[in-house]
């Protein structure tokens, strides 16, 4: 077993120019930024429902799934970036003692580049290094900036796949009345989107399902309310799913998206019956608040906890650590960017 990251030394030794650069931090997995539309399920058009009378769902045990990705350009073969990425995901279970314990976790380290663009020696070294190599499309390889954007997509895909795999395994291990709460959409996975006790919690709102008055109703949803349940129109590989919004904190004085979550659960009449209890449950998860994370207005503490857990276990040479102020061993000049 080679030491993590040691393949970097091998490719550098083979002629790659060492580099150390972390492209702008990923904002996490989001929806695609386009209008897709939705069909009403619960009511004729999107309505605002108060949650004051709703009894929160309170499952005895809940598993929370989240993942992280970390990546860094570690070298160039010519002008083709060689990226090292670490993705990790974990399921942490919350039992009657209200504490979280890891029940499953997975990590993967990959190299991302375009092999046919690398000098032969570097390429051979990389192929021999025992690291899984992913390639971005040939057409993105010409421009380093585009190559990086494409590499980033690869990183995200790797992470999504890992999360999905872990989530599906997590479903199989779920106890009879246990729920699985996933950070992000369920509709990636058939198993997740069909399960009776899986819940997707989406906190970035790139996708737009509504226009006009309905959109206004969704985005100005008052604190303590949810929208009626709708069915996002299927796109690409996505599965059939039910969705609804819930507001965790008053947005007035902040921003339209402040405290706004979109929930996903299986497309089934029972979901409609559960929409209010689940929305109330999410509101109950506001405490403890997930500070100091900047997204605390919609980041559930247990999800934050999973992320903290994963970051704590990530390889220290990839995370930005105070020590990263010290130039990387491979760099020729001290880095000036923070």
């Amino acid at each position, binding site marked *: 077993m080679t030491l993590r990251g040691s393949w970097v030394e091998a490719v550098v030794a083979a002629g790659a120019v060492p580099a150390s650069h972390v492209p702008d931090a990923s904002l996490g997995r989001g929806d695609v930024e386009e209008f897709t539309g939705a069909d009403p399920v619960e009511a004729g058009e999107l309505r605002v429902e108060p949650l004051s009378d709703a009894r929160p769902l309170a499952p005895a045990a809940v598993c929370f799934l989240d993942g992280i990705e970390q990546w860094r350009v570690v070298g160039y073969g010519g002008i083709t970036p060689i990226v090292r990425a670490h993705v990790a995901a974990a399921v942490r279970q919350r039992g009657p003692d*209200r504490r979280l314990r890891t029940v499953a976790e997975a990590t993967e380290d990959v190299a991302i580049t375009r092999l046919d663009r690398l000098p032969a020696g570097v390429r051979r070294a990389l192929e021999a290094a025992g690291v899984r190599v992913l390639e971005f499309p040939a057409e993105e390889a010409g421009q380093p900036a585009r190559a990086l954007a494409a590499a980033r997509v690869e990183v995200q895909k790797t992470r999504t796949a890992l999360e999905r795999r872990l989530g599906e395994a997590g479903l199989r291990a779920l106890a009879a009345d246990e729920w699985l709460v996933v950070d992000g959409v369920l509709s990636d996975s058939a198993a997740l989107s069909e399960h009776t006790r899986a819940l997707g919690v989406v906190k970035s709102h790139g996708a737009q399902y509504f226009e006009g008055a309905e959109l206004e109703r969704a985005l100005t949803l008052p604190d303590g309310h949810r929208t009626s349940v709708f069915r996002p129109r299927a796109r690409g590989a996505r599965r059939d799913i039910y969705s609804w919004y819930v507001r965790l904190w008053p947005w007035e004085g902040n921003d339209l998206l402040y405290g706004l979550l979109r929930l996903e659960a299986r497309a089934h009449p029972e979901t409609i019956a559960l929409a209010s209890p689940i929305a109330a449950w999410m509101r109950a998860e506001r405490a403890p608040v997930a500070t100091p994370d900047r997204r605390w207005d919609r980041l559930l503490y247990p999800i934050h906890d999973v992320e903290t857990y994963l970051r704590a276990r990530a390889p220290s040479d990839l995370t930005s650590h105070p020590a990263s102020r010290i130039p990387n061993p491979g760099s020729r000049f001290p880095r000036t960017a923070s």
Partner: protein
Amino acid sequence: MIERRDPLPSPPLSSPIGRVVATEQKPATPHQFHFWTANETSIGIGAIVRVEGLGAGDSGRVVYGVVTDGFAYSDLATPLHDVVGAQGDPAKAAASPTVRQEIRLWTAAVLRQTPEEPLQPVPLGQVHVATDVDVAQALRMDAYLGGAQPTAIPVGLYTSGGLEAPVYVDADFLLGPEAAHLNISGVSGLATKTSAVEFLLSSIFQHFPPHKGRVAAVCFNVKGPDLCFLDRPGTLDDEDRRRYQRLGVAPEPFQQVRYFAPFKADGVNLNTLRTHPDLVGEVEPLVWGLREVLDYAEVLLNRDDIDAKADAFIDFLADRVVDKEFEDGFGGAHRVVTFADLERLFRSIFDGLELASRGGDSWRTHHIATMRKVRNRLANISTRCKGLVTDDGPSNDLPWGRFADRTVYVVDVANVDPLGQDLVFARVVSQLRERLERRDLGVEAVVVFVDELNKYAPADGPETYVKKMLLDISERGRYLGLVLFGAEQFRSQVHRRVVGNAGTAVFGRMDADELATPGYQVLSPATKIKLATLPIGELMVRHPHFTQPIFVRFPRPAVLRGRDGVERYPPAADLPFEDAVARQLLKLDRRVRPNQVKDLIADRREEDVRRALAHTRQTRPQDALAHFKKQLGGRVAAVPAAARESVPPLNAISDEPY
């Protein structure tokens, strides 16, 4: 790559209970480190831990530490966020579906590193609870526990999380010559100061290393019945017995105890609470005459003021007058042995001066005022300490030169006037010192236990003789085998050099105000809290071999508590004069019949009876009654009681020259 894990099972004893962590803010240093444990842990303030280095360059390194502080916190960034999450309702805060991540972080002070060189920061390794062997290593007890001549004295049990290890102090550092003395402080009752010293004395008697010779203890009883029943068994529970066994000390009262107490003012009843008929026989009177007092007259003078002239006059009396044939210069010849003789000398000097010439106010360079002052002081002591100081007659003292191994000499001065207490301390300790210097005390080492040390060596106030003497033992006693065990409630109220020279310091439950004084700055706030709430029977020990103070538990002393003693053996009411005399003679000679004695002394002057009794006691004749009768003299010498008023200081059987 996917692994499924189940919640952690509880760790077995040998597995680590914590991990050293170090950050730029809280780094590990050669003397301190931080580690975290599970939230449920047996670790607490005072716990001893072992750190094993695992990293490169650290393997084989073992560090022992003692926990000095503890921290708990969660990932809560500011308290306000808790308020926000709970929407201002504390009840809701407790009901939140998830408990925040939290940490138990501990700070430990390094006790020992192995290897000791090179001295490096504590490795960021795994933390284990200490075993018996670890405790011995951590406290460097291995140096004196084994070997050809071990010098270990059990002091108590280190206890932490179900683990228990005996802690020993080093006799060479407790009783000299390397270091010596012990000081114990703490609040009344809860600190168990007196009890701890009693336990430690019996531990010393049982474990004093043979190569160091013989050892004895002189205990001044200054409070009620505290030390009056050291030879009687007390009540112990099973836990105490178990602790005795674990410490290797037999739970027995002291085998050899000798009690000394002065008389009450009547000169025949003993001034102690050990007067129950079954026990009073073992109390020996402590009676001193002029000679004994004059040698320590400095004690009397500088309680009030230092007066070189008075000193000089006292020296003159001690050197030139007492026990010698002396001409007063007015035609009188004196042989001054007793206070009464001295009083006669004073009278004849003052009368002589008055007759000789008008205005004559000095005698042999001593001014009349100085002489009057000295006379008053001496008269004063013989009145204030009447039962201790005899006006006349022989004295009875501790067995100087015949001290016995593993024997406790209790000197009961609990009810003696402070002036008399000072005199007793001064004389007993000075005698011990001289004898130990000359090596003719009978033992090689003596522990002197002074309770309420703050009274005798206060931090402020005049430099009294007693204070100077206690300072002297503190500073030089260790070479002589003269060891001071002092106890007081407030260490800050005892002279700095006296406590400072105590190689071993013990602390029971402490008063919070006392802990706020500068002397305790070296202790962490958590250690202070622990001291302020220390349960009964638990002590904090500082000893030269221990780099940090250590908490131990000790069993109740196996002797009868003073309070219980006076209940089980209620002190007898004072006997009428004749009965007391009869009782004393009976003690000397079992054949004596009380009625005989009573007849004999029926209308004798009490002074005469006392003197005859003292003489008999000192001579220890075969036939006590006959000797007593002879000393008392013929009935003709008796002076009717009515006549006494007219010649109070005079003594009927002295050979009065005029």
